[in-house]
Each structure stands twice: as structure tokens, then as C-alpha cells.
């Protein structure tokens, strides 16, 4: 609360602050710094002004990622590829899990793995991004949102690279996408971006105050993988309707993966109902994370 006895000092005379006077300054920018309000809106205009910085952050993460590695960008292919080989052996050959829709298990699994690794990678990177960039956060102002948001873009590059293998597999197995599947694909990726970013923003803010997040995160991701149809088809849960419903409603990635399989491998029609549910859930995740982040953002520099 500003107190009554506080008077502006004599450094220079403070003129009457009537509006006409202010307008005559002619400077288009007037910035007011004040204690934060309880409910913060998103300043989209400011975010747009800082778009160059967003690009720079994304570009930095991409270009730094594989520096001083021998295999370089091949890592983006090797990770899902090796996982696919091992999982196929264990879950398909040994545990007898099948794709359930007639498609070969490796390609069925690979579609799931691609999207899952995008989701888990972005979630991990976004959650750790604020702490990793602590030194910048403490020294320079810019919309903090840029840091976690840029991690979503970085993940897309890996996703694109790893997709090359998928194209090879499609040719090998003779499974081709249906036209609607290709059209829906950007939407599916968008849902994955919203969902991972929403959770990532929430965990990034939490991580600043509670470093427990760093230790809990790998565990959360591991658990989540089992409640997401990555290694098994959703149809395997037909005998457990409650579990199936919960998974589709609460986990937007489930709907993304099952529809991506249907669309890309042409094994089933797009399930628009499930897609709509996933879309709604991911939008809710996103806005929850966004507002949680915004509400805590201004104190990051004090507690990071």
C-alpha cells in the first residue's frame, strides 16, 4: 500500500499527470511497472514482439543438441528405432501383444513411439527449461513463456527426422496413409503440442519452487507410458470399459496415438469422437498450465 507521506523527491519536478500532457510526449511505448494483479491476462502483443527471441531459443536448442557428438542427428533416429526393435521382440514375440488391427506390430509400435517420444521429450524439456535457463531469467526480462514454449518446437525437429524411418517402414510393409489421415495429422500433432506444453508449463513453474519435480518426472513419464496405448492397442481394453474411458478422457495422447495409427496406416476410420475428446482435454491442459505459469511467473527470479 503506498503511504500518504511518501512524496516524490526533488530530482526533477513531477508534472501534473493529466492525459493531454502524456499524449504530447509522442513516445508510443509507455511501460508501467506495478505490483502484479491476482489474475493475469496473457499479453499476446508482447509475445508477438518477442517472436525473434522465440526463434533464437528454439534454434539454439536444436543446434546445441547434437554438438560434439559423432552420430549427430542420427540420434533422433536411433532412439526410436532401437526402442522399436527391442519392444517388438519383448512385447510382440515374447508377450504376444498384437496390433489388433491386422497391421504389422513394428510399424504399429513405431507410430506410437514417435508421438510418445515427442510428448515425453517435450514434457521433460519444458519442465526443466526454466531451471536450466535460471541465469538468463535472473538477468533479463522477456516473456518467460518463450523458454518452455520453444522446447515444443525443438521436439518437432526430432519428430520430423525420426519420421523418415516411418516412411521407409510404410514402403517396406506396404501400408499407406489414407487422405483424411494425412489431413488430420497436423491436428494430431497440434493436440500433442498443447498437451505436452500444458503439463510442461505447470511442471516448469512447480520445478522452480520445488525441485522435487526433477526427480518425480522420470517416474511420472514411465507410469504414463503404461496408461497410454503405445505398446498395445486400445482395443485390448475392450473388457475394461471404465479404464478405457478414463484413459481416453484424461490422457489426450491416447486419442492422438490411436487416431494417428488409424489415419497413417489406413487400418481404421478416424474416430472423430475420440479426437474431439482429446482436443478438449489438451486445450484444458494447455490453459491450465498457461495460467498457472502466468500466475507464478513474476516471482521466478526471486526464488529460482
Amino acid at each position, binding site marked *: *500500500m*503506498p*503511504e500518504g*507521506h*511518501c*512524496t*516524490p*523527491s*526533488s*530530482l*526533477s*519536478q*513531477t*508534472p501534473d499527470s493529466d492525459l493531454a*500532457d*502524456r499524449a*504530447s*510526449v509522442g*513516445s508510443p*511505448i*509507455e*511501460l*508501467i*511497472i*506495478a*505490483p*502484479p494483479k491476482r489474475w493475469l491476462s496473457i499479453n499476446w502483443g508482447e509475445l508477438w514482439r518477442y517472436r*525473434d*527471441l522465440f*526463434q*533464437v531459443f528454439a534454434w*539454439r536448442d536444436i*543446434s*546445441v543438441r547434437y*554438438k*560434439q557428438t559423432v552420430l549427430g542427428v542420427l540420434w533422433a533416429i536411433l532412439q526410436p528405432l532401437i526402442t522399436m526393435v527391442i519392444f517388438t521382440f519383448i512385447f510382440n514375440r515374447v508377450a504376444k501383444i498384437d496390433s489388433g488391427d491386422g497391421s504389422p506390430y513394428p510399424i504399429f509400435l513405431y507410430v506410437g513411439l514417435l508421438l510418445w517420444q515427442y510428448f515425453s521429450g517435450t514434457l521433460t524439456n519444458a519442465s526443466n527449461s526454466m531451471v536450466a*535457463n535460471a*541465469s*538468463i*531469467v*535472473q*538477468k*533479463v*526480462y*522477456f516473456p518467460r513463456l518463450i523458454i518452455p514454449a520453444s522446447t515444443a518446437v525443438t521436439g518437432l525437429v526430432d519428430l520430423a527426422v525420426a519420421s523418415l524411418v516411418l516412411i521407409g517402414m510404410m514402403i517396406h510393409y506396404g501400408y499407406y496413409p489414407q487422405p483424411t489421415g494425412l489431413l488430420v495429422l497436423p491436428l494430431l500433432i497440434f493436440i500433442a503440442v498443447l498437451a505436452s506444453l500444458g503439463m510442461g508449463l505447470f511442471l516448469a513453474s512447480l520445478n*522452480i*519452487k*520445488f*525441485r*522435487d519435480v526433477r526427480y518425480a518426472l522420470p517416474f511420472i513419464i514411465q507410469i504414463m507410458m503404461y496408461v497410454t496405448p503405445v505398446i498395445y492397442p486400445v482395443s485390448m481394453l475392450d473388457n475394461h470399459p471404465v479404464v478405457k474411458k478414463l484413459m481416453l478422457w484424461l490422457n489426450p495422447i491416447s486419442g492422438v496415438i490411436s487416431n494417428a495409427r488409424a489415419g497413417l496406416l489406413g487400418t481404421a476410420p478416424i474416430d472423430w469422437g475420440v479426437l474431439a475428446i482429446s482436443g478438449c482435454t489438451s486445450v484444458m491442459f494447455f490453459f491450465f498450465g498457461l495460467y498457472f505459469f502466468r500466475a507464478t511467473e*513474476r*516471482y521466478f*527470479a*526471486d*526464488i529460482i
Partner: protein
Amino acid sequence: MAIPIIEIQCIGKRYRIGAAKEKYLSLRDEVAKWLSPAARRAKAAEKEFWALKDVSFSVEPGEAVGIIGRNGAGKSTLLKILSQITPPTEGTITMRGRVGSLLEVGTGFHPELTGRENIYMNGAILGMSRKEIARKFDDIVLFAEMKQFLDTPVKRYSSGMYVRLAFAVAAHLEPEILIVDEVLAVGDAEFQKKCLGKMREVAKGGRTVVFVSHNMAAVAVLCSRGIVLDEGRLSYAGTIAGATQHYHRRTKVLAPTCLSERKDRLGTGQLRFAEFWCEDADGRRIASAVLGKKATLCFAYQAKSRIQNVSVAFNLRDQSGTILVNCNTADTGTDYATVPPSGILKCVLPVFPLRPGIYHGALYAKVNGEVADWLQEAISVDVVEGDFYGTGKLSSQGAVLVPHTWTVMTDGRMPPEV
């Protein structure tokens, strides 16, 4: 009168001391706090600490304002609020122009990226658009003097090169309001001079500059106005000369001046000055030397081991910067052949020769002919009125008083008195 470009009204910033101390909490602590009534009471008892309180002033367009204050006076907090890094707890600040702040040089430099890439990275973080950086790119490279290393990862740079590149980017930031922290205390002496020149150019170029520094000489050169903060409150606002004077009056050498925390020092560090104070004839610590009385200047130091061939020097300047006194062991022929790993070097002035006022000076030590420690603005000596000649009389002329005697003798030409 023009409308101020920065208006600061009743700014206050509160920290909870408990929260400030623990860097981060674990979730368990927080849960425990909610569950246990004892812990909750402890939370209620947490002390509040106002890093800033009721600070108000305004800055005219084109002014360069220096913010002065001791450590912990709230300078950094004010700077962080002005830079929007942390919000104020109360009050408002209105800024009418594009703001750029430099709290550190090289923010966001990534060791794996090349010099060229880091220029773009750092520029963007400081708020420059890509076009702007591209336009200034050649100037930046020229200023940093490192064309041939542009495509080398920054991690292979020497620290000097790193700082040069970082400052070069920062120096080309062109906002209407520039907020600067002690970035000048970087690089070698030559480069520091260049940076100071660039800063002066910015200040003279009609842009508004808010500058925070311990380097009083730099503040005095760059700024036209000064703000003194003391324990989170505004204690003076006015001309820079008035502000420096006010600051020096506030920081009388009552307690020994701590030098060990200073970062802006040069030299090998084989010997480092830790503290400075004055003693009177009886060996008591004094806040002020007395004109004409014996004063001993004491310099506590730390060395890595017992060292040999040590040469020490200090000087004292008046408010206008003229060096009035220079004392050094080289001139007196009393270089120390050997000194213990830690101790106190003392210089005795049998008759203190300077008039009442405050004098500042640099402190310097050489070990085996190599600079071991060199601190600008290391010492400040407050002098009070004294009876220099023991006559109770003293005219007002002359900055330095020297003990002397008068006599008269016949030259043999005048006829002797009859």
C-alpha cells in the same frame, strides 16, 4: 518542463527473510508446514524485510543518473525492478520509451555456440530484433576486435575475449532508456577505457541512462545526476557531485573498510588486501584522522604463503581527483624482504598533512615486481580539523600542509644596527 521519461513512485519491495535464505524448498517441507501447527506458527513469525521502501524520483529524457549506495542499500533490487526481472511489492514505475537493461554482459552466451551465433543469441536476449543485429553485426565484430575467431565455439575463448565479445554486443544496444549495472568492471585496463568511452558516448547521445556502480570515478564521469540509497530508502537525490559527497559523508570510516569482498581488483592475487583502517598515536582505531597529528594507515592482508620482496603503495586524492599524496615503499627504500602469510602493513604519517575533508585513494602491492593486488577506490580517509602548528591559528590556503620553520639571518650588506 519536459515530462519525465522515468517516474518512480513510492516503490517498495518486501522479501521474507526465511524465503530468501532457503534457496528452494522441498515439497515435504511445504506439506509439513501445512500439517503441523508449530511449523505454521513459525511461518507466521517469519521476518519481513524491506529491501526498498518509499523510493520515489523521476528522470528527465537524456539524463544520466547514477545510483549509489553501500552493499545491501537496495541498488540491485531497484535495478531488478526497473528491468522487470522482479515486481515491486508496492508503488508504480512509468517508463516512457523502449527499455534495455544490462545487468551482466554475455547473458545467455552458450559455450557450444560460435562467436557469430552467440552475437545473435545474446542480441536477441537483450531485446534486439534479428534485422537490427544483422545491421550492427560488422560494428560489433569490429568493436570486439576478433574477426578471426568468429566461427570458433565460445568455450574455446579466453576469458578476455569472451568479455570483449559480450560487451561489444551490449554496447550496440540502442534503447531509449538504458539500465546498466557494473558492467564496466570487466576486461583489461585498455578495454575498460574503451567501454567507458562507449558508455559516455551513449550518455552524451541523448539517451537516458540509469547506471549503478561501486566505481565512483566512473559514475562521476558518466552521470549528471545522482541518487543515494541507504538501507532501502532514498537518502539523496540531486547533482552527481552532491550525491558523491553525501555518499562519502554517510560512509565514514568508522568500521574498517572491508576489501576482501571486492571483485574489481587486478593482479596475481599472491597477496590480497583484506581490510583498511586508521589508528591514532596510541594505536586506537579512529574514524577520522586529525590534521597535524600522528596517523597510522593500516592495511590487513592475506597471502597464499610467506612471500618475499613485497612493495606496497597507496595514494590519496582530493574530491576533484588530484593526487595529493603518494606513499610507497619503493621510494622510501623500505620494500619488505619478506612478510608472513597474513598480517598488517602499517604506514605511519607522523604529522597528517591534509586539510579536513574526505580523501580517496588506490592501494597497490607488488610481489617480485609483479602486481599482486591493485584496488581503485580502496581507501578513504576522513580528516577533521586539528591544530597543525600548535599555535591555534591556521589560514585557509593550501591543500597540503608541511611542517616548517622560519628564520632570518644577515646577508652582510645592510649596515649593522647601531
